[in-house]
């Protein structure tokens, strides 16, 4: 996956990297467990100060999206499941509510929204192991 930096954007560079990597993992462009370029490599490729990359990685690690294995590199982490299911679904509901509010004001009806969600979701990578029945297979 290629991160694209827009210097004319309003979003700080490190934030751009965070957003794009998050999205890349969600869409399956970066597989779980895949090694990401090191800070040096990415800094060279993007022509961005290594401190900025490091800051983005730290932020992603804080969010549980990446983890660093010392000596090995930075890897895309398993989607977080350490949070309680309730908390996660609370967070998701907030996002869905925002989306639905927008949809209502844009004049969509319920069926159209569901169909669109169905449509778009095909572009994303879903973690099948999170259903209880398949949980053991992951190990």
């Amino acid at each position, binding site marked *: 996956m290629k991160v694209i*930096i827009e*210097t*004319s*954007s*309003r979003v*700080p*560079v*490190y*934030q751009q990297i965070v957003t794009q990597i998050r999205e890349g993992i969600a869409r399956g462009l970066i597989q779980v467990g895949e090694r990401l370029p090191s800070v*040096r490599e990415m*800094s*060279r490729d*993007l*022509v*961005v*100060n*290594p*401190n*900025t990359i490091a800051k983005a990685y730290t932020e992603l690690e804080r969010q549980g999206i990446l983890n660093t294995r010392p000596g090995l590199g930075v890897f895309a982490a398993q989607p977080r499941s350490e949070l309680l299911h309730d908390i996660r679904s609370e967070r998701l509901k907030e996002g869905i509510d925002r989306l639905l509010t927008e949809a209502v004001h844009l004049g969509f009806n319920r069926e159209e929204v569901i169909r669109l969600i169905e449509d778009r979701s095909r572009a994303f990578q879903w973690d099948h192991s999170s259903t209880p029945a398949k949980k053991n297979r992951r190990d």
Partner: protein
Amino acid sequence: MEWIIETEGLTRFYGHQKVVDTVNLRIPRGCVYGLLGRNGAGKTTLIKMLMGVIFPDRGRIRIRGKDFSELSPDWRQNVAYMPEGHPLFGWMTVQGAVDFSRSFYPAWNNDLVLRLLDHFKLPLKKRIRSLSRGQRAQAALALAVAPDPDVFILDDPTLGLDTVVRREFLESLIQIIQRSGRTILFSSHILGDVERIADRIGILVDGVLRVDCSTEQFKESLRKVVLEVFWNTSMLARHSWLVGAKSGSSRCELVIAGYNETHRAQLEVLAPCRIVEIEMNLEDAFIEYTRSSNNSVHLLFEEHSPGGAK
């Protein structure tokens, strides 16, 4: 924190004009500092003073904690300085320039120079004067890197380079930054470059250092706020946090530094019918800051965070 460069109240006049006005600059080890400003804002004068090429009228400079007057001439051996326009001796060949510079530095890394010159595809036999601007910048960079300095002071290194060469130059610069502990101060008026490369930015406006904070903080703290009001906006008081204001009959655009809840509360007192907050990109923010005629404008300073430097 170890300060590589510190200035205290640095002031310089040209005639009656204050070109650099009471600048307090502190750059810690490992920091990449981007100095921004319009032409004639005092960037080159400031850098020349730091390098001892010209002298301040007032104020002090400390390099690595040592007062300027106490430094012996060989302090320059581990400070690379690329003056504006990359002056080299035109009659020398590239090889000649390498041999010339080499004789002054005990820690000269000739392999590195040759590798860089090869990477830049600079012919050793060619005369400096027949190189293009970009090639001369590259030659100057190769010569600056060779003595393995840990401080780089670059005065508008990408001035006059075309987009491709500029990008290549930045790529080389990134490689330099990657060696940890290297401190870089560079001036530029290309904001994109500064945003990519710099940890911290400073903005000089008419010789005054108006902004000195991390690049992100600068970007995040400036907001354009559009107020729609019934009253005539010209009565708007000048606040120190107001960077710029444009007002029409019922609408006014404010640019605010360090925007926070207090500002919002203060604006709401004015009872506008609508307040719209817009984030600004670096370029807009820079333009607002540098063209502001408000001399009491909020000076955006942020303390160096201990974790900020490498």
